[in-house]
């Protein structure tokens, strides 16, 4: 089958509309992941053993099962239990929850990388818990987290095509519907690949810069 430039140009607006949804889903998913990840990280450090253990198991469970199945679960099972969500909301929650478990590890690594002496010094100078976190621990813990977080942001962006399986009209779904109605697969599928590749390659450059600027988390 020949590559047809006219056809490729004619489907561009549709694909770009899908691309916008892809970006929106990534952005919202990232916010959910960042917030929930912090919650997971804090609960895992909880002094209450039961809470820490339960959170730990939950995180392991989410990390050990496929995102696609989790999306199906949220999209198909929750309505039966009385919670009906629009497809995009289900997708954002699913992706956010999945990546929150990865973000939690980054938070944990970042916090644990702050030397013990810093905590002790904070205690010795009589700082409150709040002051310790805000002025001593977080300023040292956050910069090394940035490259790792950006890495997962990119990973999440690449997973957004899964949302097409729960009927979100993002880039991949637009491409599939174009392909199915015109019986031409080459152009839409290739263009989707190119779009992802372009964003990823740009992101890799940004990532390298972030790593140089903030250093990387040592695991």
């Amino acid at each position, binding site marked *: 089958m020949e590559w047809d430039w006219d056809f490729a140009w004619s489907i561009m607006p549709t694909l770009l509309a899908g691309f916008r949804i892809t970006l929106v889903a990534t952005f919202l998913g990232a916010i959910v992941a960042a917030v929930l990840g912090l919650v997971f990280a804090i609960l895992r450090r909880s002094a209450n053993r039961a809470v820490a253990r339960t959170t730990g198991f939950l995180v392991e469970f989410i990390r*050990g099962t496929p995102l*696609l199945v989790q999306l199906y*679960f949220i999209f198909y099972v929750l309505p039966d239990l009385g919670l009906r969500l629009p497809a995009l909301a289900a997708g954002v929650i699913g992706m956010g929850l999945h990546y929150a478990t990865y973000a939690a590890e980054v938070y944990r690594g970042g916090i644990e990388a702050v030397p013990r002496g810093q905590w002790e010094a904070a205690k010795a100078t009589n700082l409150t818990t709040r002051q310790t976190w805000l002025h001593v621990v977080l300023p040292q813990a956050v910069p090394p987290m940035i490259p790792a977080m950006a890495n997962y942001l990119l990973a999440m962006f690449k997973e957004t*095509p899964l949302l097409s399986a729960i009927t979100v009209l993002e880039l991949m779904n637009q491409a599939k519907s174009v*392909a199915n109605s015109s019986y031409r697969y080459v152009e839409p*599928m290739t263009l989707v*690949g190119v779009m992802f590749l372009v964003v*990823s390659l740009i992101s*890799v450059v940004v990532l390298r810069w972030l790593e140089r600027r903030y250093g990387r988390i040592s695991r």
Partner: protein
Amino acid sequence: MGDWAGYLTLILQGAWVTVELTLMGSALALVVAFIAGLGRISRHAWIRWLATGYIEFFRGTSIFVQLFWIYFVLPMTGAELTPMQAGVMALGLNVGAYGAEVVRGAILAVPRDQHEACVAVNLTRFQRMRHVIMPQALPLMLPTFGNNAIELLKATSVVSLISLSDMTFQAQVVRSQTGSTLMPFVTILLLYFAMSSAISFGMRRLERRVTRGLDGVR
């Protein structure tokens, strides 16, 4: 719910497909990871470029896009693939690209003086790799390989979208036939979790085996 046993059989058949995909995909990924990883640190610039191109391409686009491209676009160039072949190929090539970076990183992490010592005692390039570098690099790779294998297992669920009857696909079949959602999805979530736990358990065992006798070195 009387037919539940029948539906469970269906899901277990799917589980077997998932296991097959994971095993074959991992085998391909392992081979590809070593070829591309070694290619990345080759003496010849064109091999390095080729390996880098492959790695960046497969890491830059998602498994989903690659799978659809392999399944829908490749046949138009004349290469007819069954869903299983397309699935194994996409999984292996995708995870292999991630693995290649692991191989490269682990080899470069072996201290430089080890290389120099090999040159000093006149080992050939092959002997150096086989007897000195690899035994030290392998333990460094294993933990990440374990994670990669789990990522591969999770990625197998995507093949359900090209109508390969894996576990996720069968769960969808059960859902559409019974209208029950909770049972099939909870069942496969538990099965996936059991499989990923098995992988991480196996990897920890393997890790202990290959690090045996390396205590003094690292």
